[in-house]
């Protein structure tokens, strides 16, 4: 079956005074119909830039898409004309941004902001659009939809604004919803509400979702498949079970170890990943994680590892998975003897 979205060998650079920053390097992944794909990574790992290129939101200049293809159904988004792109954006693919405070228009009533897309893409009349907008407000769980329809964003709380954003994004029944850290700015109890809502809508409307987050808890609870990004590269990808139970990249290990386990009884010190991510102006020659990696070998500093296939659909960009590499268990044992 063809994938709904297929990204292949995507490369995105940004021109700055200091040189060209390689924000996304050779990233390939796909999204199936009706699934939630999570992208995790630290700030600067290229996760937002990746999805922005899907939406055609990379400002050029300074951004340049150096290579790769993004196929939505069978068409390459990167080769589309502006006009074709405009037809897809907002109707077939839509996006929810991180900060609900700044991504709504403060001078426009919420209802009108939801209607905009409906009138533009679906050619609804004003009355129909209003009906649909009120339905959408109800669907995302905002009480008193008729009253809320006429309110301005400043009259909404953070969680409500995020719901309004989701209502706008879903108003045209998109096939793909991109959510860029939709809950990061929200409190835990509100985060729980918004995540439940997204899962619920995915079930009801069979929308595919790309969920960007840095919270592994959110990943475990919502996603079916996960991509881990580091320094512009995709270092590991697989199902949630692959990632949490059989991770094969030291960066993924590090991420999993650095979160406190709520259910643990005893207190162990957290295991942080020492150091900080590399400078993307001049990324290291070899594996970008090698300088922070406990298991780095000579080859890691010299050559970028390929994607090793661990299982079907589970890949890891790490030399440790090469059959010639020493077993990690042996390295750990050797390390503890020292």
């Amino acid at each position, binding site marked *: 079956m063809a994938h709904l979205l297929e990204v292949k060998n995507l490369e995105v650079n940004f021109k700055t005074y200091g040189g060209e920053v390689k924000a996304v390097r050779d990233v390939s992944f796909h999204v199936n119909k009706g699934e939630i794909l999570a992208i995790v990574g*630290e700030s600067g790992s290229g996760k937002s830039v990746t999805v922005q290129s899907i939406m055609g939101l990379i400002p050029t200049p300074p951004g340049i898409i150096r290579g790769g293809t993004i196929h939505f159904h069978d068409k390459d988004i990167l080769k589309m004309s502006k006009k074709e792109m405009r037809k897809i954006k907002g109707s077939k693919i839509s996006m929810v941004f991180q900060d609900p405070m700044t991504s709504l228009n403060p001078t426009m009533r919420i209802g009108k902001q939801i209607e905009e897309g409906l009138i533009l893409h679906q050619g609804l009349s004003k009355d129909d659009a209003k009906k649909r907008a009120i339905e959408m407000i109800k669907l995302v769980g905002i009480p008193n939809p008729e009253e809320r329809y006429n309110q301005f964003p400043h009259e909404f709380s*953070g969680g409500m604004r995020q719901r309004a954003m989701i209502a706008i994004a879903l108003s045209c029944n998109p096939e793909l919803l991109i959510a860029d850290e939709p809950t990061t700015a929200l409190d835990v109890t509100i985060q*729980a509400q918004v995540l439940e809502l997204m899962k619920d809508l995915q079930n009801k409307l069979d929308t595919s979702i790309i969920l960007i987050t840095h919270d592994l*808890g*959110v990943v475990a609870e919502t996603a079916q498949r996960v991509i881990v990004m580091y320094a512009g590269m995709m270092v590991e990808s697989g199902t949630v079970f692959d990632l*949490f139970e059989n991770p094969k990249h030291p960066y993924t290990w590090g991420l999993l170890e*650095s979160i406190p386990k709520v259910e643990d*009884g005893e207190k162990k010190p957290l295991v942080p990943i020492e150091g900080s991510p590399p400078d993307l102006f001049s990324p290291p020659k070899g594996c970008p994680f090698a300088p922070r990696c406990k298991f780095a070998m000579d080859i890691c500093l010299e050559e970028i590892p390929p994607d090793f296939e661990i299982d079907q659909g589970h890949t890891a960009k790490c030399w440790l998975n090469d059959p010639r590499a020493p077993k990690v268990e042996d390295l750990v044992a050797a390390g503890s003897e020292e």
Partner: protein
Amino acid sequence: MSEHILEVQQLSKYFHINKNQTVKSVDDISISIKKGETFGLVGESGSGKSTLGKTIVGLQAPTSGNIIYNGKDVEKLDKSTKKVINRELQIIFQDPHASLNPRMQVGDIIAEGMDAYKLAKGQERQNRIYELLERVGLRPEHAKRYPHEFSGGQRQRIGIARALAVKPKFIVADEPISALDVSIQAQVINLLDDLKKEEELTYLFIAHDLGMVKHISDRIGVMYLGKMMEMSESDELFKNPLHPYTQALLSAIPNPNPRADKRERIVLQGDPPSPVNPPSGCRFRTRCPHAMDICSQKAPEWKEIQKDHWTACHLY
């Protein structure tokens, strides 16, 4: 009592926004913190946890109530003793991008407190800066740089070094890790943990990430709309949460285990009400799944249900 380094007694902090409206940001809160303990304070935005922290270190004057530090009431002290106490109570701020002066060199930022208290001069001052930088995992040559040259995690380390410079006894850490990436958070938490042991510090650790709070704290207080809802030892709080708000808060933490039984999640309805006009009686009642008639009429008492486990709820 010498056992408690800090006692907060019925502390309130109100902000008047206009003639008729008052925000009761912190309302009648009492906590006692033992020497060497880490007390975690959790709550959603607007619950008053940062205001409480700032009031304790003296950045704001309380509206009413007392702050007893080492057995002495801070308000009633003469200026010189107060100055000593102000030195011993330090704070680390949430946003490492906004809390460092961008026009000052890191060394001077760290030494500012030392200069104000005339703790060190000349070569000694310089050595102390280098020592502090190394203490928090930076390098001495960083002293000549400016804040913009550092990453978020490094800036937070500078903030910690600045607090340590004046040899504090008690540190309020106001969401010190929420602006940082996951892999960096663990570094800063471990640093705070090590410093606590070595410098014999006491922490008031404010956060909204319950996982981290549990990890670092001995006891935890849960705040909602300016009121303390529940307080107990941290393991006890996670095992046996009494207040419906705490229960909802705990069940809302996403569990990083994809195979975990999807826990009975208590999804709260609605948003926290405005602190300008809080609900009558119990402030949580508008979102509480167990709300009864009495909840709207009478504010629940602050009671000790089990030993060292306090809560304010009509269910008990």
